């Protein structure tokens, strides 16, 4: 009995010392909704992985804390944070005003890129009013890519709008489309990694202007956990500087 008491006191003391060394930040749990490839999903062995998971683990390592991932369905993910089932959400959550009323966001850690894809044999320069003139461009109806292309190039190019990405790929295979503008990960999996491999990326990946592509994804915390958010922001800045961020990004969004 006595021994146990001493032990527990010792553990408590050690925890307090560790805690004081790191100000407010302690080990945390992070809520995530899977699957949402390539941001968060499970490997065939059942392990969590994805861009969010790897970046999240790297951030925790940088801060020097242990992070545990808690899987939570999307519709209950903010209430779960408020109810202290976990202390942060890192699950491809787009930063917006409605959510800002509920949670505290970190700096955006990624804006999911969109990109132009074209058949290898189509000669097409960096997309602009001149290079896209008279081209037929495919987009998925009602997506942010649709809005962007319609406003930027709707006057010079034909915009074909499809209900699904599959229809669009079929029409590009058949030669009806000169280029498509897609979410980069979707384009990568359906076009670049397709068996025939007849496609290429044209120009840079596009994440600007914010008006179309949004502010990006942020990590959400409870409003009062300002120190925690601060620690993550600093760690994110460090990872971006030392190249770790670039490495993880290339792993999931590289060509």
């Amino acid at each position, binding site marked *: 009995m006595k021994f146990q008491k001493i032990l527990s006191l010792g553990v408590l003391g050690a925890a307090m010392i560790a805690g004081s060394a790191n100000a407010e930040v302690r080990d945390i749990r992070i809520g995530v909704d899977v699957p949402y490839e390539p941001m968060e999903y499970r490997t065939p062995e059942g392990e969590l992985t994805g861009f969010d998971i790897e970046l999240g683990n790297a951030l925790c390592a940088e801060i020097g804390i242990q992070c545990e991932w808690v899987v939570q369905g999307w519709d209950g993910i903010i209430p779960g944070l408020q109810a202290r089932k976990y202390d942060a959400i890192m699950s491809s959550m787009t930063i917006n005003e409605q959510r800002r009323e509920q949670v505290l966001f970190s700096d955006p850690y990624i804006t999911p890129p969109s990109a132009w894809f074209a058949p290898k044999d189509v000669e097409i320069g960096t997309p602009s009013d001149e290079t896209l003139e008279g081209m037929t461009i495919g987009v998925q*109806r009602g997506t942010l890519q649709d809005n962007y292309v319609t406003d930027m190039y709707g006057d010079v190019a034909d915009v*074909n*709008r499809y209900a699904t990405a599959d229809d669009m790929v*079929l029409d590009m295979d058949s030669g009806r489309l000169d280029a498509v503008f897609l979410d980069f990960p979707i384009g990568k999996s359906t076009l670049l990694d397709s068996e025939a491999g007849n496609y290429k990326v044209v120009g840079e990946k596009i994440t600007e202007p914010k008006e179309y592509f949004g502010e990006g994804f942020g990590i959400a915390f409870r409003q009062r956990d300002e120190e925690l958010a601060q620690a993550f922001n600093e760690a994110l800045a460090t990872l971006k500087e030392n190249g770790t961020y670039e490495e993880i990004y290339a792993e999931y969004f590289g060509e």
Partner: protein
Amino acid sequence: MEALMNWLETQLADNSIFTLQTLSYYGDGLVTTVQLVALSLIIGLVMAIPLAIGRGSKRAWIRLPIFFYCYVFRGTPLLVQLYLIYYGVVFVEGIQETWLWVILEKPFVPALIAFTLNTGAYTTEIFRGAIKATPRGEIEAARAYGMSRGLMLRRIVLPSAFRRALPAYGNEVIFMLHASAIASVVTIMDLTGAARFVYARFYAPFDAFLFVAAIYLCLTFSIIYFFRHLEKRLLAHLKPASG
């Protein structure tokens, strides 16, 4: 024109959905829909007359292929026919190198082909029924006058068959207008395509679709009015003598 545009702009200033830009989408959509429906109906009608005559032929090699064509196109959904013609043709080996691809590349012609073949099949059946219903007495009278088959067809059978087919054909025209709403699945920006675009852009289903429904209503009303006028003229002899 300038003044009209300015007036329109001030009228539209209060809302964010129906801007000059979206209205121009609806305008272009209206033109596309009317073109698509009118062309397919005209070609379908021209096709249907000889087919309807052939459908009643005594020779099996004329009658059976026409029966088969009508059976297939009336027996499958128009949407499926449209998919087959638009997406199906690309699986024909090497079609991209032939002259056919020039017209099949854009979605308009494949949709026109699907709509024409579909309305052609229905119209054939409508006319066949009308021709079959020609009163025996009229044909006997024509024969008694010593008319040849061709002359009898031209002067007696077809004119009276057209009159009998008119109400049913008016229906077919309206159905075709409404069926054309599926053109937007193959990326044609027809009226429905414009509405779907506005809906997806502004997340405003009621505004986008009620507006387009009103346009369809106006079109349908014009068609009904046109056919009523035709019926009044062409079917005048069937009205009660006094009144």
